[in-house]
């Protein structure tokens, strides 16, 4: 059983698309935060998180996204989420996160939103 954060990244234009795999729960939330911090330290300010390979995210993972979306704002950067399955989208909606972080249906829509 893999207890480590699994995530891939891909540069598309001037955006960095991150694809977390499997799950982001409290056991890997700190690693997820460190990973995002490292990308920002490298100078990436346009981040897209593609949820298509994510089976589960808990409030710990959601909070990391929220914190980093806020961090990017002053520098004109942005964090956009895309390709959520309906169950996860619903959870972002009931927790009110969708009012603060942009959520797109497709990666193309997310790239266009940057």
């Amino acid at each position, binding site marked *: 059983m893999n207890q480590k954060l699994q995530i891939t990244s891909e540069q598309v234009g001037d955006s960095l698309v991150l694809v977390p795999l499997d799950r982001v729960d409290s056991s890997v939330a700190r690693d997820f935060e460190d990973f995002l911090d490292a990308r920002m330290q490298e100078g990436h300010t346009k981040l897209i998180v593609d949820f298509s390979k994510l089976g589960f995210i*808990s*409030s*710990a993972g*959601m*909070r990391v996204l*929220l*914190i980093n979306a806020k961090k990017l704002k002053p520098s004109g950067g942005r964090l956009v989420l895309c390709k959520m399955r309906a*169950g996860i989208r619903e959870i972002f909606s009931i927790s*009110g996160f969708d009012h603060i972080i942009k959520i797109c249906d497709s990666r193309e829509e997310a790239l266009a939103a940057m």
Partner: protein
Amino acid sequence: MEVSSSLRHLRSVREFVVQHARQAHFPEDAIDECRLAVCEACTNVIEHAYQGQPGRLVKVSVAVGPDRLSVRITDNGKAFDRSTYFEPEIRRLARERRSGGLGVHIIRRLMDRVEYRSRDGKNEIRMVKYRP
């Protein structure tokens, strides 16, 4: 099932609950909600009741009836003080490093009934999801 108070056991707890819900033919969106609620509740036990201390006991039991799925989680840690709980303001969570009660908020929104009890050093959360 019984697990020790480590976040690395969250996956097996989630799978335990999902397995029972699937056997009872609960719809997948309701299973998604139960899975997240149970994960949030167990995370709270590990991080708050046991304050990150490893090796403590977390008990999770699931009962499936014709109209509902019930989950009970018990621990022997610090009791959840409801008087200090306020529904989180999401924008504030982005500024603050603390958890901010988001897990409890999510549990309450996802499950149909949620009850906490603390007595004689034992804490219990009971959550019920009715079959849609």
